[in-house]
Each structure stands twice: as structure tokens, then as C-alpha cells.
């Protein structure tokens, strides 16, 4: 889906025709805005693919680039400059949206590395159909939780209060939230492994991360389901 920038190929500026070796947002010679370069989201922020990102720095950079690239700045420019500003800003926004979120960032990097991962974003907001494989270590608890959820919904429907059940579910919710946090901690560990590791270590870390993302997706769907049932 994505091509890594081939910086060996010189790119000529559309305006002054001077060629330059690295793809930049502005021509180093005449400073005119350039069309988006074929690169990944990391390259938009002049970053190598990585997972540990300081989001405050990323935000600052996003704002700095937005000020320079946003279509508002080109409202009176030529048609082609307006078109480039639109395309550049769309890419910048897409990149920022993906990289600022730790899960989307992980998922994106894994895809970039060629891994098959479930779509975290598509599963958002509804129980994902492909994420109904319960992690083996949680099978029993999930089974019990589902029973309780069913019972709670029944009680809610009948207009009854069931404080015991409500307490159990709240406890279960807290427990699963902890598990989500644990997954996040493990993910961060794998981030560091990936960044520090050689090709083999990276492969291993990637495999772990794919599994962790699946587990997390499952867990957060569960937490959401409990919250919805309790909140209903």
C-alpha cells in the first residue's frame, strides 16, 4: 500500500524546475509549496518509522506544519498551489491522526512492516465481529461475565434493580480495565524491543504486538459492553 521514499530519484520543482534530491514540502530553491511526496506517515514529520513518540512534540510539529501548509494560507494562490496545499494538508492530518494515537500508530507501523493486523479503527464503536475469539487464559471469566451481562440486561428490561449483580459487573469492569492497562504496558515494552532490536528481534516484537493488539481489541470491546450495560 505504501512506498518508501526513493530519495535517490531527483524531484524537479513544478515552479522553478530546479531538481532536488530529497522530497520536501517546499522547494529549497524557490520556496514554493510542493505536491505530497510518496512517503509514509512518519516521513511527513521527518521521522524514521518508530513507536516511542513524544506526542507533545508531535503536536507542536503538527501545528507548525499546519500553519505553513493549510489551504487557508493559499486562498489567493494559483490553482496548482491550492491543490498542493489541500493534498499536503490532508496527508498531514491523516498522518497526525494516525501517529498521535498509540494503538493506531502501532497498527500502522505493523502494516508498514507487512504484518497482517485486524483493523483497530474499524472495530471502534461496535463489537468487532472478527474479535470474538476470547483469549484462552480468559475463557472462563469471559464466559461468566457474559452470563452476568445477560442477567443484567434481563433485569434492566424488567425494570428491576440488582445491586449485587451491579457490583459484580463493576468489579469485573475494573478488572478488565486493569488487563487493558497491562496490555498497554506490554505493548510499550515491545515498542522498545522493536526500536532497539535487529531484524530478527523486530520480527519477534512485531509478532508479539500483533497478538497484543488482538487481545486489547477484545478486552476493550468487553469493557465497553459492560459500561453500556451498566449505563443503560
Amino acid at each position, binding site marked *: 500500500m505504501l512506498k518508501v521514499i526513493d530519495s535517490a530519484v531527483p524531484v524537479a520543482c513544478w515552479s522553478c524546475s530546479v531538481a532536488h534530491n530529497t522530497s520536501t514540502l517546499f522547494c529549497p530553491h524557490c520556496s514554493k509549496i510542493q505536491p505530497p511526496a510518496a512517503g509514509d506517515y512518519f516521513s511527513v514529520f521527518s521521522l524514521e518509522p518508530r513507536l516511542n513518540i513524544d506526542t507533545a512534540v508531535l503536536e507542536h510539529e503538527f*501545528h507548525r506544519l*499546519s500553519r505553513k501548509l*493549510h489551504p*487557508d494560507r493559499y486562498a*489567493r494562490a494559483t490553482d496548482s498551489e491550492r491543490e498542493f496545499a*489541500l*493534498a499536503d494538508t*490532508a496527508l498531514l*492530518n*491523516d498522518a497526525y491522526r494516525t501517529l498521535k494515537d498509540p494503538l493506531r500508530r502501532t497498527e500502522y507501523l505493523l502494516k508498514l512492516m507487512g504484518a497482517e493486523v485486524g483493523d483497530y479503527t474499524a472495530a471502534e464503536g461496535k463489537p468487532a465481529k472478527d474479535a470474538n475469539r476470547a483469549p484462552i487464559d480468559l475463557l472462563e471469566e469471559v464466559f461468566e461475565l457474559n452470563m452476568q451481562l445477560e442477567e443484567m440486561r434481563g433485569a434492566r428490561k424488567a425494570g428491576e434493580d440488582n445491586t449485587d449483580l451491579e457490583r459484580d459487573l463493576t468489579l469485573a469492569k475494573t478488572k478488565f480495565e486493569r488487563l487493558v492497562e497491562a496490555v498497554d504496558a506490554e505493548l510499550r515494552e515491545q515498542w522498545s524491543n522493536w526500536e532497539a532490536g535487529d531484524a530478527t528481534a523486530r520480527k519477534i516484537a512485531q509478532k508479539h504486538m500483533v497478538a497484543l493488539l488482538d487481545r486489547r481489541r477484545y478486552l476493550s470491546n468487553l469493557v465497553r459492553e459492560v459500561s453500556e450495560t451498566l449505563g443503560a
Partner: protein
Amino acid sequence: MPEAPVVGIDLGTTNSLVAYMEGDRPIVIPGVDGSSLVPSVVALEPLPKAGGRPTVSVGNSARKVLIESPERVIYSVKRLMGRSLAEVKNELKLFPFRLAEDAAEGEVPRLQLGELRFTPPEISAYVLRQLKRNAERFFGVEVKQAVITVPAYFNDAERQATKDAGRMAGLQVLRLVNEPTAAALAYGLDRAKIGTIAVYDLGGGTFDISILKLNDGIFEVQSTNGDTHLGGDDIDNLLLTVALDEIHSEHGINLREHPGAVQALRKAAIDAKIRLSTEDSASFDVELPNGDRYQREIPREVFELLIEPVLARTAYPCKQAMTDAGVTPEQIDEVVLVGGSTRIPAVRALVDSLFNLSARGKKCNADLNPDEVVAMGAAVQAGILSGSSKTTDDLLLLDVTPLSLGIEALGGVTAKIIQRNSTIPASAVEYFTTGVDGQTNVAIHVVQGERELADDCRSLARFDLKGIPPMTAGLPRIEVRFLIDADGILKVTAREQRSGKEAEIEVKATYGLTDEQVETMILDSYDHAEEDFAKRLLIEARNEALGLLNAVDRGSQTPAWALLTTEERTAIGEARNHLLEAAKGYDIPAISAAIAALDKATRRFAEMMMDAAVSTAIRGKTMDAAGEELAEAVTAPHAFSPAEFK
């Protein structure tokens, strides 16, 4: 001719305004009657017998027609922008819109206005043209470019319809800005540089909530939510329904069969609603067609109970917006109120509890006039786009798309490709292929909304990818790029990758006008010519002069004339003769100067007439405005009075 600034327009459900940046602050431009609010009401005047162009009036003069001949008037048309026939039919239950009889599903619905038929964008174009003219009279040059505001929760079709209306009115729409965001811009001009604010915008027909992060001149919208069919109109309808039902049961009259009487009652309902914002009780007193009177006292408690369900509908969008922005009420530093309906105390109380304000020692912020703040913000955005003001140089607005964009996948399921609340411009690339050997077309259905099934979302467009080179099924790889631009409007491009051929796309918007249709609907294409424009300005200046002269002449027959000093009468006489001479000439600035002089000379006279005729003296009105107020005593033609500025 000097260049006119880019104007900012608030195209509202009830009222519309136009503003611009004067130096470093936004200024609202007044209309012919000195008021900055132009009611979004359009009336068709009786067609000229000899044929020729129909005349359409806009604003207060159109509103006056409403009670006498409601069938020649359209208001609240914003509710119909970008909507399908089925959706419009739904609105007809509550609003006196009359659909053209030949309306067919799949076409943009047309409304019957007197003898003629207009699409909603055409009606809006008339309102926009009025604002454009107000601005042109103000600047003395043609206005060509504008920023127009739309409810943040407007979908693609509603946005496109608004843009079409701008084009029909002869305006190049440089940007559509979301109303709450515009308000934030107006507020943010001279305010704390860092923080999280919520904008609660309850207008005449739409509700929006937006949560923004302010950071050193960058206004980054975090989330937005709302309801494009929720507003003051709904409150009016509640009061109206109560009154209609009571009249039916108590007086045995079904007023619903008398459109003019319904309009009179609606006006009484609106007046009562407005009074209830400041008073504990308001009363209806309406004369019925049979001579009976319908009298009714409405205490504020009853009113608040009545409107509670309407207000409650704003709560969920607020909570969802906070969830989407990942903030709690406590993390919101400030809540800004926008829209006339936020004057209702019950609305303020609801906002207070939603955002936990009192408990935190905070209050809603309504420092700026809630009717004007959106237009002012539009002017700020206009300033940003034209790069004309130092104040706006450092400002940048990063807005979001309110609704998720999806494509219909196998089994009718929505596959979301751009999530709601994504910063715009935003894009997504999807790949499509063929299912049958030699297939050369692929159909794509694009929808907008949050629902799981495409049928439950709003259909945006059907794209037909044509001219795919015949290949084995599954082999073509068509790259389709979806781009939501800074106006929140979708653009689509496609390319077949294996053959490198640009796939041809036939975009068929589900709702909306084609480019060609918009072209045929452009109002007064003749007044694009500069010569015509100068001619029109001259005619307008002469009309204005004539109106003022008329008002003065009639005024001199009133008792107030005798109360003036001899010097005053002489001064008025001289100014009058001077204007009479100037109006015969072709020098527009000279006419304008003479108008201003006569207006100044008659200022006290106007006030005295006003004092004499109305118990509550309204100060600082111009001669024309005085004539307007004194409709009984002085029947001055509705002329162009020179605008007054604070």
C-alpha cells in the same frame, strides 16, 4: 474601483447577517433599515402584468407579506437545504412549505412560491444576494467573495447546497465555516491563548456543540455533534400547537385551515417566547377570524415544562462530543453560548448542569451578541483567507468532519473510511476490483453517518467507475481517493493501477443540483458587468435620496415641524434642495454626501416625530427609520437609509 474585502456571512434559519474585518475587528454591516439582522424570509411580489422579471423581496419587507399572503412567502428554508423529497415532505407537517406538484423523487425538491417554483438553494440565494447588496452599498464597490457559515453538523449535501446558493447569488464562496467554530474565532480574538472551550449553539433551526482546543492562535476542533433540525423553531411550534388546539376546543375554530391566521398566531407565540426570557409570565391575545379573542397567560414554569423535551435533545450531543474529544466537563475551561435560543434561562440552566459550571464557580459566556457572533467569526475567517489583517495572521482554524464517511460493502454494511471528528482536509484511499471477467464498470455507493447499515446512513453519492480495461476478474486494481476538503465537502478521484489508466468517474450525487442546473439558476447574471454595477449603484443612491426626500416632505406636514426652530427649518430646507439637485446628477459620492447632510440636519426632527408618535422614544434613528416606525403617520417609501455605525 477599489477592491472590496471578503465578507463573512451567517446564513441563518431565522436571520442572516453580513460582516467584514475593519482593521483588526469584525464589524457587522447594517441593512437598509439600519438593522444588521436580515430575516431569512423571501417573498415573491405580484408578477408584472406586462411580463418581465419577477421581483422578489427579502427580509423585513418580505416578512410583512407573511400574514396577508402567506402563499407568496418562504421562511426557514435552511431546513430544506440539501434534503431529499421524502425528508422535505416530513418538514411540511410543521412548516407551511408548499411543494411543487410535479416534484419527483431523486430531484431536488422545488417549492411553490406564488406562481413560481424555486429550489431551496435558489431561495437562499435571494437572501445571500440581499446581504451582498447591503455590503456593496456599504463599501460602494462590488462584493465578489465570501465566507459562509453552516451548522457544524451539516452533511455533505447540505454544505454543497449552501455553496450552490452562494454561486447563484454571484458570490465566490471561499470557504464554508462551521457556525460554532466561527463563534469561537470571534471570541478567541482577544482572549486567553490556551485552553479548552465548548461552543453551545442553539439557533433558530439547528443545534451544534463543538469542543475546541485553543493553542497560541490555533483553534483545533476536537469534536463536534449536533442536530440539524433542532432549534427555536421547535419551541415556537410547541407554543403554536398548544394555542391551535386550545382555539379548536374552546372556540370551535380550526385555525389550521387559515394560513394567514396561523402566521399571526406564530408571531404571537414567538413574541411570548421572547418575553418569557426576561419575564415570569407572558400572554397571548389574538383576534380570531370570527371576532372572538383568544387570551392565554403562560407562566414561565409552564413554558419550561413544555420545552423541556426540546432542550433535553441537546444533552446527548453534548455528552457524545465530550466523549469523542476525550474530555470531562471539568476539563472544559469555558462554555460559549451562541444563537438566539440561548437567551432562554432554561437553556442556560441546562448548559450549567451539563458542564458543571456553577459548582466550579463558572458561568456560561455570552459576552458577545449571540445573534451577531457567528457573522463576526465568519468575518475573521474571511480576514484569515485574504491575509488582509495583522490580527488574523497568526490565527488558524483546524476543523473536523462531523460525520463518518463510509462505503457500502458486501451485505449492505457500512465500511467506514474516514471517522467522524477527523481533522479536515482528510483523505482515504480504497482499492476496488472486478468480480466478473471482462467487467468494465464498478459501482461504489458512498454514505455519511454512524449507523452500521448503509441504508440507515445518508446516501451521498453513487460513483460509477467506468472504462476499466477488460481483464480477468479480480485483476484490475482501482485506486479510489476520497478527499474531504476544508469546506467539509467530498471529492473523489480514481485510477486503475495495472493499466495506469485514469478510470473515468461519473459522480451522481444522491441529492443536489448538477453544475449545469446551478448555472441556469444564477441570479442576475447581468449585474456581473461593471458598467451595470455602477448603474445599479446610481439607481440605488437615487432611490435612497428619493426616499429620504419623501420622508422629509411628509414630515414637514406633521405637527412636529412647527416645533423646530427657524434655523433648523432653514437648514433642512437647504439640505433638501441640495439633495434634490444632486440626485438629478450622476455623481454617486455627491449624492451620498447630500443624503448624509440631510440626514444629519433632520436628526433632531426625526427624534421629535418619534417622541410624538410612540410612547417609548427610540433615539438615534435616522429620518427613514423614523418614517418606518411611523407607518401610520408617515408613509415614506422604504428607501435606502445611510447606515449608522457605532
